[in-house]
């Protein structure tokens, strides 16, 4: 994949954005402009990575400052924003909404009010793409953890979002399944990716990395440089 081949992704802009969770300042005055296709978010536990991801995904609102995602305001929760942005969480179990695999994939298309045949065709194609076609009518809770996370990915990507936010999507998975999920996420340069991860090798595959500490974004830049800085802050 040549870096220049990617369609120009949208821009994520935060200006002096802060988030309070209870009386905790989870995100502290973050200002940044990100227009790279693949953005890695790294930092220790509790440093504010998830809050940053959830802010971009419209799952929490800024208590101060502004957020713009591809020109859209996440807090408005417009259909347009939801169609443009997909979100993937760590826990494979908590993302399955419908009882069987095909039904769960189809659930993401419900809001679009497609014709039955069209929705079914898209579900079949998507399940095929994620290697879940043979499991279409199986109860979703019978799947392995890796298969469930593939289904979660399928549920998010079937809507063809322009931005995918993934919060430690491989945290519950073994090495093989982590790799599979990462390949799906990193492999498609036609959409933008925000990847929160503790897997620094994955972060190194991205186009830019941002580093969080104590709720603040303390650095952003080339992944190699940012990862180096993070690792040296750990050593001593």
């Amino acid at each position, binding site marked *: 994949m040549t870096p220049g081949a990617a369609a120009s992704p949208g821009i994520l802009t935060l200006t002096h954005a802060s988030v309070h969770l209870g009386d905790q300042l989870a995100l502290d005055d973050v200002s940044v402009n990100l227009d790279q296709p693949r953005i890695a978010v790294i930092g220790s536990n509790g440093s504010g990575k998830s809050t940053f991801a959830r802010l971009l995904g419209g799952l929490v609102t800024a208590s101060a400052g502004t957020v713009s995602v591809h020109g859209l305001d996440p807090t408005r929760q417009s259909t347009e924003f939801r169609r443009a942005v997909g979100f993937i969480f760590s826990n494979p179990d908590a993302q*399955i*909404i*419908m009882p069987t695999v095909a039904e769960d994939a189809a659930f993401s298309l*419900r*809001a679009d009010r497609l014709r039955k045949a069209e929705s079914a065709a898209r579900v079949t194609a998507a399940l095929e793409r994620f290697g879940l076609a043979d499991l279409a*009518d199986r109860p979703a809770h019978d799947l392995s953890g890796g298969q469930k996370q593939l289904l979660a990915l399928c549920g998010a990507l079937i809507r063809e979002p322009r931005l995918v936010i993934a919060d430690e999507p491989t945290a519950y998975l073994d090495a093989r399944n982590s790799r599979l999920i990462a390949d799906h996420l990193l492999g498609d340069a036609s959409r933008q990716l925000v990847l929160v991860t503790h897997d620094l090798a994955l972060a190194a595959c991205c186009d830019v990395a941002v580093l969080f500490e104590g709720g603040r974004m303390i650095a952003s830049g080339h992944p190699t440089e940012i990862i180096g800085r993070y690792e040296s802050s750990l050593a001593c």
Partner: protein
Amino acid sequence: MLTLYRPGTGWLHRAPAGAKALVILAAVLTVSLLPSTYPFAAIALGSALVAYLVTGFGVAVLARQLVGLRWVILITLGAQLIFLPTEPAVANTSRVVGAVLIASLLVLSTRVVDLLDAFERGLGPLRRVGIDPARVSLVLAITMTTIPVLTRVATSIREAQRARGAGRGIRSFIIPFLVLSLKHADDLGDALTARGAA
């Protein structure tokens, strides 16, 4: 124990979900209201057998359903034998089993999504009194999906208790179970929002 959709192309599969649900509901009600005597017990179980044969599911699927129901059968029968003579106890159990078997045909032959769509249309008039049928059917679907997850949560808590040598105390079970269930509900809420449902 939950019956689940079995893919197929038989006439029951192709029948529209709403009409199918109504016919099956009528059959279930009829069987449940039969008198509690041996002849009618035979009719209840016989109609279930006939229903599985004419819909093409056959005896094998019926047998599997019965195996799934074994605890329900035992408990229903056992509980009634304590209070009732043998004939009504056996007949009541047969009616319940017959009714559940016939009701299962709906789930066996209909995808949950189609069922929910039909349900949503059927509840349409409730919109006027401020009930959103789409919400109601979504809650039903999530309930079906969540039961196995919470079952697994309960099992893992019991294992953790045992691993630490704690007894089977209900209080040391209920608190972690509530905490984990609420956490799960929170996470599901996020997933619903992210997938454009909320």
